[in-house]
């Protein structure tokens, strides 16, 4: 029996939709798209265009649940989890704080988990890995800080680098590049070594909130113990967990969190980051990660950085900044529910990148990079830190 405790907290929001349908597709003068209408919901667009996949339809579902007209069936749960929570609908709806649809799905998923009906299998597996091994991949905890071998990083310091699971286990070049850049700019960097745990992003979104809180609490305690006043991360998902979710639960944590793009952009203006080289590609585009952009409002710093790399021209995709199309990978929700669908969404994004004539796509989220790379070969995908380190001529 589902008690709808969390959904009830969002009751007013669940009824706030006026059903205009702009969360399915929208036209905006701000977005010079080729077709004037552009998709708003990647799931609606790539999953047959059925109403229950867009926010307007899902809000009706939420009302049905609240009124007891609908029950959480397997199909319904599937629908509620097959969503990257990318927030393009929130942006287009423009009704915050009255309405911010993904908050409602997140509440419903928490109710589903409380009732023992979820999360679905693959997400549950991720949860188990995070619970037991503190990372989304199930990698050995003792290997978490292997990326830092030979770097002699202290575990105490004012500025602390939080690597996240991807940079720790599958894309160590991001961690090594980030540290190299910041050190070159004269910043002393500390890290949590094996005491860094997953930030909990998947659990914040899949409804396993007590696990999310456990890992978050651990990370906060460790960071406090390190004496850090600033935490820097190169992962958009970790950044969002700290900036939005940790802040929502604990308020003041005693340290500031910055995304590496914000820090690097500042260091470039101060003349502390100097580019001695460039990238092999001369024309690049930037993919805004949903959790960096629409969740945290960081749009300019990555662009400032790219534009300051000598010999590089930044070509924007048709849908960029607030209107950026999701890569499909957000919080591993869609890839876990329907990997083909995630790949299809990412392929659409890659096609949009290619249309700019760019030879490479730069992003500042390892999960986005991963999803985009999985979708298509033939156009190089850089993480921002990796691109910057390369353009600085650093040997990582």
């Amino acid at each position, binding site marked *: 029996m589902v008690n709808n405790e969390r959904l009830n907290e969002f009751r007013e929001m669940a009824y*706030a939709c*006026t059903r*205009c*349908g*702009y969360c399915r597709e929208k*036209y905006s003068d701000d977005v010079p798209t080729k077709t004037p209408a552009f998709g708003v919901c990647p799931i609606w667009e790539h999953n047959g265009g059925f109403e229950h996949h867009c926010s307007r339809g899902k809000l009706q579902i939420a*009302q049905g649940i609240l009124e007891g007209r609908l029950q959480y069936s397997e199909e319904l749960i599937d629908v509620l989890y097959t969503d990257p929570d990318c927030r393009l609908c929130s942006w287009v709806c423009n009704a915050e704080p009255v309405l911010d649809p993904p908050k409602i799905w997140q509440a419903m998923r928490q109710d589903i988990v409380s009732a023992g009906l979820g999360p679905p299998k693959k997400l549950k597996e991720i949860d188990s890995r995070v619970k037991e091994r503190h990372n989304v991949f199930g990698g050995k905890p003792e290997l978490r800080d292997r990326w830092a071998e030979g770097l002699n990083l202290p575990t105490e310091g004012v500025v602390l680098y939080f690597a996240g699971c991807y940079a720790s286990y599958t894309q160590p070049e991001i961690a090594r590049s980030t540290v190299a850049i910041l050190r070159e700019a004269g910043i002393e960097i500390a890290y949590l070594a094996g005491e860094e745990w997953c930030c909990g992003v998947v659990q914040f979104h899949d409804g396993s909130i007590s696990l999310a809180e456990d890992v978050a609490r651990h990370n906060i305690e460790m960071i406090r113990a390190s004496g850090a006043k600033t935490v820097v991360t190169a992962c958009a998902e970790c950044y969002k967990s700290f900036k939005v979710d940790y802040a929502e639960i604990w308020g003041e944590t005693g340290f500031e969190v910055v995304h590496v793009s914000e820090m690097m952009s500042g260091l470039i203006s101060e003349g502390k980051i100097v580019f001695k080289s460039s990238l092999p590609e001369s024309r690049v585009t930037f993919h805004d990660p949903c959790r960096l952009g629409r969740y945290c409002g960081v749009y300019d710093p990555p662009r400032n950085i790219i534009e300051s790399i000598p010999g590089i021209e930044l070509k924007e995709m048709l849908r960029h900044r607030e209107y950026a199309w999701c890569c499909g990978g957000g919080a591993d929700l869609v890839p876990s529910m329907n990997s083909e669908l995630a790949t299809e969404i990412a392929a659409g994004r890659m096609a949009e990148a290619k249309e700019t004539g760019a030879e490479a796509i730069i992003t500042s989220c390892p999960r986005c990079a991963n999803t985009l790379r999985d979708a298509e070969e033939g156009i190089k995908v850089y993480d921002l830190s990796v691109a910057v380190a390369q353009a600085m001529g650093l040997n990582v």
Partner: protein
Amino acid sequence: MPGIIVKPVTTDEVSQIVKLANREKIPIVPRGGGTTYGGTAYSRSPEESSLTICMDLTRMRKMLNINEVNRTVTVEAGITCTELETRLRRRGLYVHTVYGPADSVTVGGVISGVCGGGGGQMFSSAGNNGPYFIGVKAVLPNGDVIETGTRTNAQASMFGRVCHGPDMTGLFIGHMGIFGVTTEVTLQLFDWPSYEGVGGVAYDYENLDDAHKAFTALAAHPARPFSLLGLIGPGPESIMRRIDWTLFYKVHGFSQEEVDQKSKIASEIIAHTAQPKEWDSDFVRILQKRSLLHPHDVSPRKMGMWSYPEPCCPRDGTLGIVKATLELMNGELESWGGRIKSAGSAVWMHGDQDYVSFPLHHKESDPEAREKALDVWKKIIDLALEQGANFLVMDKHIGDMCAARFPPEYHDFLRTIKKSLDPNNIMNPYVLLLSED
């Protein structure tokens, strides 16, 4: 709720589905953007479940043909109004669609769901869009595909509406899908007058009569210079603070001189009819900004759920209906301040009629307020019908209320046409009291 959802891509697919549904006697409700005010009916009552097909036309969204010489554009019915308008605008062209949530509203939904075919950005000067629809391709309830207008000559293109007998395009305007599924629509093309200007004046709260006098004088100008002409003012005093009446107009032209000339006409008529309290109030400036920036962004998203009783009035009856409605709302909503909000009232020139709106808002999470708002909404519709007004945006609720007042002979006439086209009563059978005995 519908039991089956289909999303055809071609007229042929529509026809096949309709044939099958007709054979199996399964009702079909066509659907465009799904934005019609009061929803559709997939069964006789919300409690009754039924194996109804929802036919979603939004995958049929091609722009098929633009003929700048014949001044026509032919589109598939599921194209959104914004997509069509924007594509045309890039060529300096224009068609009449809607002012409303055009990003979701489809051309097929407007022509079928709004009597007269809706009202667009030239709402006041053009009136109903009806005259500017040239022809349709429609799938009849037996699955046959027909075209109207000049296409009744199989050798001809679709370039004219009235020929070879009765105007059958009209049968598919405002029919709510009861006579079939419209799959293609041909609309008349216009050049887009890209210069625009707005202006307005304010009359005192107490001075509705003067404001209305000026409004009527402006509306009577034979050249219909105003693309939008509205009188925007207070709602019921019991739930809304007093505000002035604002007479607001928007003009379009092919040059700045034309725009200035039209604006001058407005000032002169106002000066000769009823002196306003203010010529350029703050509210006018707000309207100017909003109206210029976002003509389509009229969805009241931050204000909560809306119920908009919107009667279309004969101009000589408008003032009486506005006063009676405000009085009714005032009494009905006496103790509802805070739970039901009014966004004021508005009278819009709509060709030779006036389109009047009394926007009310409530929180859907407050069931009592919802009930009350709905009750007041119904009472206003009844009052307006009683006083000789009509309603354009057709949905299940308004449609049933209007149909309840049809003279029996007219209702029989409508049922006879419906029965001969749709003997199995499969096309949107639960509206306009067509299925009632």
